[in-house]
């Protein structure tokens, strides 16, 4: 074997022919000369041994990997999603109680702050304030109903009249808040920005939900008067 391809192959023949032609002319020999001389030999490999410290590093990595899998694989349960505990531990330990102020704060910032603002001050003329509002700190009967089904039309808050629409957040609305979320976010607004009012419990929310039942549209301020 001496040519770069088998002699029967047409491409091999063609380039052999080219090379022979090239050999005929001085200029092309010079050109090939240049191309060849700038080319260093094809790369080869040395055979330095693997440093011993690397083997220690690899062993340490594999050890750490094994320990990690043993600790965080949730016993290879298909339904385990929490890295810190497997299924058995999860069922033995009761779930941590949720702090309504933390959950409520998060829900408020995600869903309410766009209109009522992070500071609870609302936007003058457009969105009523929650801080210091008699609606927020008043009866929870009224407040829970607003959150469940929304409120539209004129409403007087802290002596000013607003005319807008608040969306519904209840389980049948687009937001799908359950009683725990409604209780948490109301507890949050009743105890932030200087407001002080008793917390709203999920049980109370559930009771009101049962009392109202299905309702086609939002409340008006006048309709809520009986629940003051």
């Amino acid at each position, binding site marked *: 074997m001496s040519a*770069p391809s088998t002699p029967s192959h047409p491409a091999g023949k063609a*380039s052999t022919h080219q090379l022979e032609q090239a050999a005929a002319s001085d200029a092309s020999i010079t050109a090939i000369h240049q191309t*060849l001389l700038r080319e260093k030999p094809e*790369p080869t490999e040395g055979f330095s*041994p693997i440093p011993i410290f690397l083997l220690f*590093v690899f062993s340490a990595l594999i050890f*750490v990997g094994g320990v990690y899998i043993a600790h965080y694989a949730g016993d290879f349960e*298909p339904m*385990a999603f929490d*890295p810190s505990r497997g299924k058995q531990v999860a069922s033995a330990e009761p779930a941590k109680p949720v702090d309504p102020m933390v959950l409520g704060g998060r829900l408020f910032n995600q869903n309410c702050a766009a209109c009522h603002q992070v500071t609870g001050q609302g936007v003058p003329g457009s969105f009523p304030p929650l801080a210091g509002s008699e609606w927020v700190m008043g009866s929870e009967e009224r407040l829970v109903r607003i959150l469940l089904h929304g409120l539209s039309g004129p409403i007087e808050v802290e002596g000013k009249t607003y005319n807008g629409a608040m969306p519904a957040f209840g389980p049948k609305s687009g937001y799908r808040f359950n009683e725990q979320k409604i209780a948490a976010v109301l507890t949050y607004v009743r105890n932030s920005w200087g407001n002080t009012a008793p917390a709203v419990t999920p049980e109370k929310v559930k009771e009101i939900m049962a009392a109202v039942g299905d309702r086609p549209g939002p409340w008006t301020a006048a309709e809520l008067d009986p629940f003051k």
Partner: protein
Amino acid sequence: MSSAPSLAAAIDPRTKMPQERAELHQIDESTRVLALIFLGTSAVWLLVGTIFALIASWKLHNPEFLSTQEWLTFGRVRTAHLNTVIYGWATNAGIGVSFWLMARLSRTLLRHAGILYVSGAAWNLAVIVGTFGILRGDGQPVEWLEFPRYVTPLLFVSYALIGVWGIITFRFRRGEHTYVSQWYLLAALFWFPWLYSIAQIMLVFAPTVGVIQALTNWWFAHNVLGLWFTPIGIAASYYFIPKVLGKPIHSYHLSVVGFWALAFFYNWAGVHHLIGGPIPVWVQSAGIVASLMMVIPVIVTAINHHLTVIGSFQQVWNSPTLRFIVFGAMNYTLASLLGSAMALRSVNSVTHFTHFTVGHAHHGMYSFFTMVMFGSIYYMLPRLLRKEWPSAFLINVHFWGTAAGITLYVVALSIGGWIQGMQMNDVKNYPDFLQIMVATKPWLFARTIAGLMIAVGHIAFVVSFVWILIKKRTVEETSPTLFNTPPTLSLKTS
């Protein structure tokens, strides 16, 4: 008996391996047209991708920019950027470099060139149609697979042809020894059609349900980086570093460990994009451990590359090829180690869903892979065309524009992304999402500046590319274009 060895012997009987060099020259001749087609189209796609990148980057801090043009909304431009640079630039350049390397290392002339002509034409046609499809709104909502479904079969067939070609060439190799670059190239040619076909079936044509979709998506997207671009980048580094320096690669044993560790661990690592998601926790932990284990092939490859380079920095600095490739190899080490760190739960909870991840993706794809491709092209074109690069100045502009630009890019997005992640995890002090978003603006602006620097580099590169294509071949050129010409020996009589 062909005349090749005898001619080579006639040229210079004293050179150590005259026959090998004459063969290499013949092989280069046989690959010339195809290599120029792949590398030329890749350069065009590079420019197109850069334009999309600049538009998308500008929109991130000035959202009103071009927002009335439906075809140029952020979602489409950003997607067009990703797909043109991945499938237009990087894959075309990768294929061009791979088959040239494969032919050289197998010491065989380019066989069955027709396969490559067909697949090259089909591939570029598919990328053109696909990019238009994305811009007009036909894109698929799967990251890294956004090309509309009417072009993906064409992409797959043309790619499979290239794979077949690679295997044929490898089959007809000569010589006892298979060099390390060949392992990586051959593996990459197998891996990519496998990834692409599985992802197409499980995500597009017969979509799986629920979280399996997300899992398949990230398995695919991460493996395109790790099992397609990375092996080509490593193969090119393994070839050009010892080739230009003229010394052997540090250790064969390390190469073996590096290759098999990459092949074994990388496939698992993609899950780290879904940490904290509704995926069974053991799958996440397996992905994290695999990402951690990637330290093994990375360290091994780093030792092999960097210990080969050590002691020859002057040569690296003077050679355009090596300046790009060694920059790429160093960033491969850095980006991979950072990537392993980012897979740890504690770090991931900060960096996930922030600009940090975007910075990291560019670190791997640009600082490593793209720079290695630039270096390879600087080596290949003079051999293919038998002409020298016309201007060391342009190469300098290219190097500094891209190297400084991408470094600014990665540093800015890493710092900005880290701050963003810390703020998003701190609901108490940063309750307002918008406030966090506004705070990222200076970093995003720095990214546009970095993008402009990179664009200047790319323009210099394309000008060089066109110039070397059209310039006349002269006999006077005897030495390659270097940044500093080494001093020549001269006899002094005192």
